[in-house]
Every structure is written in C-alpha cells, then in structure tokens.
C-alpha cells in the first residue's frame, strides 16, 4: 500500500469503518512506515478530542435562567405593545399639533407686520435704450485690418 492511499483511508481505519482485509493492509503499512505512523498518531489524538468533549457539564441553574429569560421576554413583549401605541398614535398626533401651531403662529406674525409700498417702479423694471454695437464698430472694419 502506498502512503497516499493510506492518507485517504486513515480516518475510516481509525473509526473502524473499513473491511477487515483493508484494515490489515493499513496496519501492516503503519508498522513499516514511521512517517505514516506519526500521522496516524496525530489523527488519533486529534479525533480523541471528540470523545473528551462529549457531554459538557451543564450549568446547574439552567432551568432558573431559562425561566428568568422567558419572563423577561414576556415583559419585553408587553413593553413593545405600549411602544407601538406610542409610535402609531401619540407621535403623529404630537407632530400634527406642532404643525398646526406653526401655521397659526405664521398667520399671526404675517398679519401683524404691514408694509407700505411707496414706489411702483423698481430698478430691475427700468428700460435702457438699445445699443447697437455694429454701428460703432462694424464687422467689415475688423476684417479689413
């Protein structure tokens, strides 16, 4: 058996998933090849972590914590119900009132300030006589130069 073939089958050998004949071939190769043997040991040690990690110790207050969490979730849900009312009704009502108050104040301020119009003509409405530039500097003169 080649080392490459062993590398492909090693995990199945360590898990006892291989037929007896193939298992025997691998065992023979491991006895002859120190490099593969080292890798097999490494794999075995690494996979043994799975066995050690099985059934971790559970917190003895697991149920107490679970109950507390459930109660917290219920109270949070109730809180969100009151928040929904606040967001859906109270907030729009407050902003509508604020808007109406703004409009009312605007009308009041606008009505109080009265301006007198003294002039009917403004500088921007003044008429200027048309200036014909072609008369003072004809194009022909420019081309002749």
């Amino acid at each position, binding site marked *: 058996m080649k080392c490459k073939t062993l*590398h*492909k089958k*090693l*995990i*199945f050998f360590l*898990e006892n*998933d291989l037929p007896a004949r193939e298992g025997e071939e691998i065992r023979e190769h491991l006895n002859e090849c120190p490099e593969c043997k080292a*890798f097999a040991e*490494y*794999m075995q*040690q*690494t*996979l043994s*972590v*799975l066995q*050690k*990690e*099985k*059934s*971790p110790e*559970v*917190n003895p207050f*697991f*149920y107490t*914590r*679970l109950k507390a*969490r*459930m109660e917290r*979730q219920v109270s949070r849900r109730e809180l969100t119900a009151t928040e929904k009312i606040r967001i859906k009704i109270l907030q729009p009502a407050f902003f509508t009132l604020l808007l109406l108050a703004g409009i009312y104040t605007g009308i009041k301020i606008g009505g109080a300030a009265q301006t007198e119009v003294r002039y009917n003509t403004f500088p921007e409405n003044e008429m200027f006589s048309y200036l014909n530039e072609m008369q003072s500097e004809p194009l022909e003169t420019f081309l002749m130069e």
Partner: protein
Amino acid sequence: MSEAEIINGLQQGDEKIFRKLVDTYRQMVVNTCFGLLHNIEDAEDVAQDVFIEVFRSAENFRGDSKISTWIYRIAVNRSLNFIRDNKRRRWFQSFENAVSTKQAWLNNLRSQNGDNADFDLENSERSAILHKAIDSLPENQKTAFTLNKYEDLTYKEISEVMELSVASVESLIHRAKKNLQKKLYYCYKKKCI
C-alpha cells in the same frame, strides 16, 4: 409519562411538565448545540432559546415524529442560525480585536506552571484545530457529523432529524470524514501543532 401527555401538558402551559421536559432533554440539547458551536456559554444560550421555542410552538407539534427528534431539529436550526448571525457580526469586528483576544487566551494558558499547563495547551490547540476543521465543513455535513459523533445518533435517527434518506446521511458523513482528514493532513504537514 407518555409523549402525548407531555405534549398535552405543554400545550396547556403546565410548568411542571415543562420542567420535566427541560430536565430530560437539557443535556442532549446543550450537547448538540456545543457540537456545532464549540463554546459552552453560547451552547447554553442557544439551548435556552430551543426550550423557549419548544414551549411556545408545542401547540403546532402534530406528533408525526418523536419529541426528541423534534427537539433535535430545533436545536440544529437554532445553532446554525446562531453561527450565521455570528459570522455577520464577526465581519464587522476588527481583526486586531480577534487576534488580541486569542493571544490573551494563549498567554493565560502559558502562564500556568508545570507539565499540566503544557498538556492543557496542547489539548486546547488540538481541540481548536479540530473545531476549525469541523467548522469549515458544509452545513449539512457538519450537522450529520456532529449528531453522529457528539450524540451517537444512528444514521436512521439522523435521517429523521435532517429529513433526508439514510443513504444521503451515510454519504454526508463519509464526505465529512474525507474532508476532515484532508484538512487535518494539511495542518499536520504545516506543523499546526
């Protein structure tokens, strides 16, 4: 107490029955979550979510499968969701932060005196390598492998939890082992440990 009585009790909100259910399946749920998350605090957190969901969705349980299968299914789904959420969260976490935390943890281990500390360190590193290799597996391979290795479930039981055929589970676990071997060989060559 039969399974029907337990479900009946849960549907009526019977606290005593709920407590009994938690006591019976607590270890199983934490173990499954731990197999997928590799962290006991996270596993207990998710396990609590699992029992809350069991309590709240008991009325929807039709009794098509065993209670344990139903709970396993919830535990697997919750754990996978937790991993997905965590990945998104970690994306925003700075790399430096993660490195300094890991370094602090290793320094803490190294600061312990004696051979025991070296042994612990080697074991922790070995366990970290294995966890990393398991985490890099596709979700369904990881689920099947974890249920088989951490919970010692048979292929038939896994097929019921994952709602797949036994042949599919067999193939998933075979591929999971092959992938694990490839990753561990790569790590061995690179002298990870």
